[in-house]
């Protein structure tokens, strides 16, 4: 079946511009996660959605970052006034109830 998809696969933006990254999770998965991965580093947790509960935003690095999940499915991560340090791969994962997460291919964001 279809896996987690993310768009765009690559995004180049100028410093100060806003960007939106999209995640389409696996149908029926109740949990959705966003992570950030810098070059050669592990995954940094950003935000977690579980069903209709309020999202866990504890990993968002600043108020320039926000995310929403519409209808319990598609999610959008928005970064306002992008900075060069925001350059990274942004990964989305979805999960049925439990431990295993299914990751998308990521969006590589480059801020020039």
């Amino acid at each position, binding site marked *: 079946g279809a896996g987690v998809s993310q768009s765009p696969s690559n995004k180049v933006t100028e410093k100060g511009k806003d960007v939106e990254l999209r995640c389409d999770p696996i149908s029926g998965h109740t949990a959705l996660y966003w992570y950030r991965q810098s070059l050669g580093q592990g995954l940094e947790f950003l935000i977690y959605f579980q069903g209709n509960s309020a999202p866990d935003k504890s990993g968002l690095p600043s108020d320039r970052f926000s995310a929403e999940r519409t209808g319990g499915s598609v999610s959008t991560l928005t970064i306002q006034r992008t900075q060069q340090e925001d350059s990274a791969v942004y990964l989305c*994962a979805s999960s049925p109830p439990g431990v*295993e997460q299914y990751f998308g291919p990521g969006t590589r964001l480059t801020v020039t």
Partner: protein
Amino acid sequence: GESVGLHLPTLSVQEGDNSIINCAYSNSASDYFIWYKQESGKGPQFIIDIRSNMDKRQGQRVTVLLNKTVKHLSLQIAATQPGDSAVYFCAEMVGGGSYIPTFGRGTSLIVHP
């Protein structure tokens, strides 16, 4: 603060050898430990997990060992193949409804044919 880390950033092996990737964790409250494989240009892929009440779990060609006494986790890959070349991440997670994992930095496994 609590952290998950790996002992070796790079591991090179010959095809057919067994590989062992190690991971140290520090949160004694973690309920689950997970290994992920990430190939170049792709998202991580779940390999295997183990609960804190277990000390060993086997999958297809992989075995995860958990030593809670020294807070150590390892992933053993039998008969390593070139397709196993990737970065391997361990992660720990406290259960209870909020399944948010903490990932280690990763170990790069290079398999030479």
